[in-house]
């Protein structure tokens, strides 16, 4: 995806979303009536999330897969890593429900994975929340 022509000129998706956001807030924003300001801020928020998601790329998903493979003692695989991640995540969720991680040596690793995966999602969705709560 990053190898397309525009991206090589420094005009990748993240840059386009950045300038779109700046235009929206600095040039369109002042002309938006007060009762539509909420929609403006929501649109800008959506752009921010999309941009961070693009920037994070496959990193968080692949890291999650590596943690789950380690937890379950499965050997790493590169084939259909997304399908593999969904599969292991579903298994992990079901195991939490049935109490497989209530106690014992795997509990800490399981909790660490839950926490790290959730943090990765918030880093994309609302990193300011983590700052406000003193988490990061």
């Amino acid at each position, binding site marked *: 995806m990053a190898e397309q022509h525009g991206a090589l000129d420094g005009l990748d998706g993240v840059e386009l979303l950045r300038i779109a956001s700046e235009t929206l807030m600095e040039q369109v924003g002042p002309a938006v009536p007060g009762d539509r300001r909420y929609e403006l801020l929501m649109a800008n928020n959506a752009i921010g999330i999309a941009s961070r998601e693009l920037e994070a790329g496959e990193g968080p998903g692949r890291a999650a897969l590596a943690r789950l493979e380690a937890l379950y003692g499965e050997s790493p695989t590169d084939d259909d890593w997304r399908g593999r991640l969904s599969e292991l995540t579903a298994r992990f969720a079901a195991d939490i429900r049935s109490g497989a991680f209530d106690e014992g040596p795997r509990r800490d690793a399981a909790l660490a994975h839950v926490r790290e995966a959730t943090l990765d999602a918030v880093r994309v*969705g609302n990193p300011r929340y983590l700052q406000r*709560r003193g988490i990061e």
Partner: protein
Amino acid sequence: MADVTPLDLQEADAQAALAGWLASETGATDVAVGGVEPLGGGAIHLHWRLDATFTGGAFEGDHELVVRAAGDATLAESLDLVREFAVARAAADAGATVPEPLWCCEDDSVLGRPFAVSRFAPGVAAAHLLVRNEELGGSRPALLASIGEELARLQTVPLETPPLAFLPKPEPSPALAYVAEFRAALDAHPRPRPALEWGLRWLERNARPTAQLVLVHGDYRNGNFMVDDDGLRGVLDWEFARWGDPLEDVGWLTARCWRANRFDRPVGGLGPREDFERGYREAGGIGDLDPAAVHYWEVMAHVRWAIIAIHQGERHTSGRQPSLELALTGRIPDEVEIEILTMIDEAERGEFGG
């Protein structure tokens, strides 16, 4: 509800139908309806404020009323307007401050859909305004105390109130019924959510017993408190009512997700717990405000909000209701999950009241 005809109470025909029905309900010889203005606020129902002059009958004189009519969309998990009216009526009878519920009409031939009429109560109900503007709602300690008093009062509604026989009694307990309900909701969602599963497992293993079932408002928080400059004028939105634990509404009220970033003010971003708790205890609230138990119900509140937010996101992604606001709400569960994990960690270290 798919084929309801549109309703606009600013049209003469609808007003005449309403006036005729009000006259027959109250024994008036004539009712004149005017000054109809739409009110915003409800996401599901339609609202109007109006002036009604009753000639003869039990309501002789001028009255400011609010008409609430069933909207075109319904939420499966909420009570319909007729049942919500019954709950608000029972709460008012128990002494809770509610815009007085007057009449309810189930006959579709009047306005084409069910509607309820209540007395107009002045004031505003807006969470962010209330958090930001400390003048609003009068003295803060007094406002917080009255939020506690109101909760204590609504918890006196007797479990065997015949008009509320439709409200289910959670089995085997409110806590475990919620866990089962939320797991079923997650099972209906395409993507697994390990952090919510972690929270639910903790809620199951640490489930709190409920000594006595009480009426639970179900959305008892800053955005549903109608206030003016003098204080609390009414508790709104009874459509999520149920029988449950006395601390359910407390945990919802003080959950971190409703603090509008004022994490230093546990009661809905409005102020400290102590003022609220004083009001609740002095009005005879039956729940034991044990900090560990309140903490438990706050974790439950976060899981519940995450489930609701997932549902809202699905209303967008399913194509039923394309909406930027719903789409963004669907991303909120991530940060709610962080709070759930943090609170479980706090509970395990014996840290409560944050």
